[in-house]
């Protein structure tokens, strides 16, 4: 459960700036209507894709945003493909549809990318983070930026279990800086306790250090 206290004030918000483009980053324009950022998380049953979506939304809330996270439920079973969606905005979100054109994707299992339709609708100016030991070039099919990061291995090393979700989230937030790491830590504290929390906090700190900070802060020019 989230605490309800906004732990960080963000201004200007890089996530929103990313959608508005470089001119907004320059800060010369009048403040525009805030624009929603949409995320899609893919994984397999047991990898914590739905938990990842809830954590991302909870972290966004901790950082002072409005948020929405929900799964695309099927007949749930271990190993079956799972999808979950997140929206982050500055104003209330009334839209309830599934995210068909995500700005960003997180893929927890690289074999899911064997399906060429998995990345359908992905914003060419956005980016995709893949949990894999393979190089990103293996998954790069368009101009959309892709980074691969072996999150399962890191999770096994730190928490002793092959659950990559929190490591991926930390790396993703380090890349995008949409929500500060502190907010993710706060979201984890709302969901876990004891050794599970401690190990996950250690894991997210390590994961965040493995990628280039702010690399996806700005909009790509596809």
């Amino acid at each position, binding site marked *: 459960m989230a605490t309800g206290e906004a732990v960080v004030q963000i201004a200007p918000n890089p996530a929103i700036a990313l959608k508005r483009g470089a001119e907004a980053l320059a800060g010369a324009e009048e403040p525009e209507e805030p624009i929603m950022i949409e995320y899609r998380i893919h994984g397999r049953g047991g990898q914590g894709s739905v938990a990842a979506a809830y954590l991302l939304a909870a972290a966004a809330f901790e950082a002072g945003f409005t948020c929405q*996270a*929900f799964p695309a*439920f099927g007949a749930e079973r271990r190993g079956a493909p799972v999808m979950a969606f997140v929206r982050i905005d500055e104003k209330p979100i009334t839209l*309830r549809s*599934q995210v068909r054109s995500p700005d960003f994707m997180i893929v927890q299992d690289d074999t899911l990318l064997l399906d060429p339709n998995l990345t359908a609708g992905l914003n060419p100016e956005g980016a995709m983070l893949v949990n894999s030991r393979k190089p990103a070039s293996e998954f790069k099919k368009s101009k959309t930026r892709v980074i691969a990061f072996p999150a399962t291995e890191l999770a096994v090393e730190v928490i002793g279990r092959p659950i990559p979700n929190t490591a991926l989230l930390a790396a993703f937030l380090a890349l995008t800086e949409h929500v500060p790491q502190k907010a993710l830590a706060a979201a984890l504290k709302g969901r876990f306790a004891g050794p599970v929390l401690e190990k996950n906090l250690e894991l997210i700190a390590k994961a965040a250090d493995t990628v280039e900070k702010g690399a996806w802060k700005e909009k790509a020019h596809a």
Partner: protein
Amino acid sequence: MREALEGSQAIARAISLCKPDVVAAYPITPQTHIVENLSKLVADGNLHTEFVSVESEFSAASVVLGAAAAGARAYTASASQGILLMSEVMYNISGMRIPLVMTIANRAVGAPLNIWNDQSDTMAVRDAGWIQLHCISNQEAVDTTIQAFRLAQETELPVAVNMDGFVLTHTMEVIDVPAQAEVDKYLPPFEFSRKLDPANPVSMGTLVDPNWFSEVRHSHHAAMVKALPKIEEIDKAFAKVFGRASGGLLTVEGDKKAKVAILAMGSVVGTMMAGQDEFKDEVGSARIVKLRAFRPFPAKALRDALKGVEKLVVIDRAISPGLGGVLGTEVSAVLSTMDNGPKVYNYALGLGGRDIQASMYKDLLKAIENPKAPRFAIFDADLKKLPPEDR
């Protein structure tokens, strides 16, 4: 306090704030998380209630019936086939005018088996004599749940709070969970004037012969009609304490002067509002009528809301096979007494959980520009998937 919560978790918290004496429920997707969270609140010592684990929805409804009749604040929740199994008891509850509250986590009814959201379950008990309210967000579901306990108590009628399964129950969003002190101020302790009393024994729901049955039904109908202003009054009283209302009987969103309107219940209203923001330059604005009270049906309020509207799309999340949409048919009936009422286009959408995108707003408004547009259709059905004889 504002928190990021899953809808079901927030509902369990809202129930807890209303301090039920008895909770009885049988788990069914997508209602399960509500009951799980309630049971956790009880197990952790945070909710002091008699939590009765039952073996079926029939028993769940029977337990809350008996509990409320004995003077206890009682709550249950279900969905889909669970509602159908409860239906006999639902008629008993309302027929005996027992005040209690149920959440319906709306889901399709099988066969074929489908666990996803539409509103076929609540429509199947349309005539069971319960107050039926619909929510477009988890905030409204939380607020309406708290209101429902007061409404049940003041009307001596059972109240079903509908929230779309998965779309709301499994969505995490920012929800302002009211403080206990404020809920205590708003919701008085449970009282039931006709509660069972061993010192003054009565029978409830006994045989009523033809000499009295029509009068009993008239009285039930009259009580439901009288609940219309109560629903508004209780929502207004809520706004006074908590600073926000849930939409009374209905509200008009979007362009209040538009000659085209879209009417719907539940979460799809929010998607249509988002669709209007995105596509109004392309297809124009619409009056978006958010219908909150389905039973009792706010006929007059609806006619007032639709004055000057020429074309009305009624979105249905359930159908009556062989007739059309349930809500659309009812709206048409109510508008028949209106001079220059709108032409009604009744389109069923999102049956069995089919995703409804914001672009549906545009698709609907474009479709009714065609003079030959059908007056009823399962709008998003792809007939090419069917053999020719089924189209």
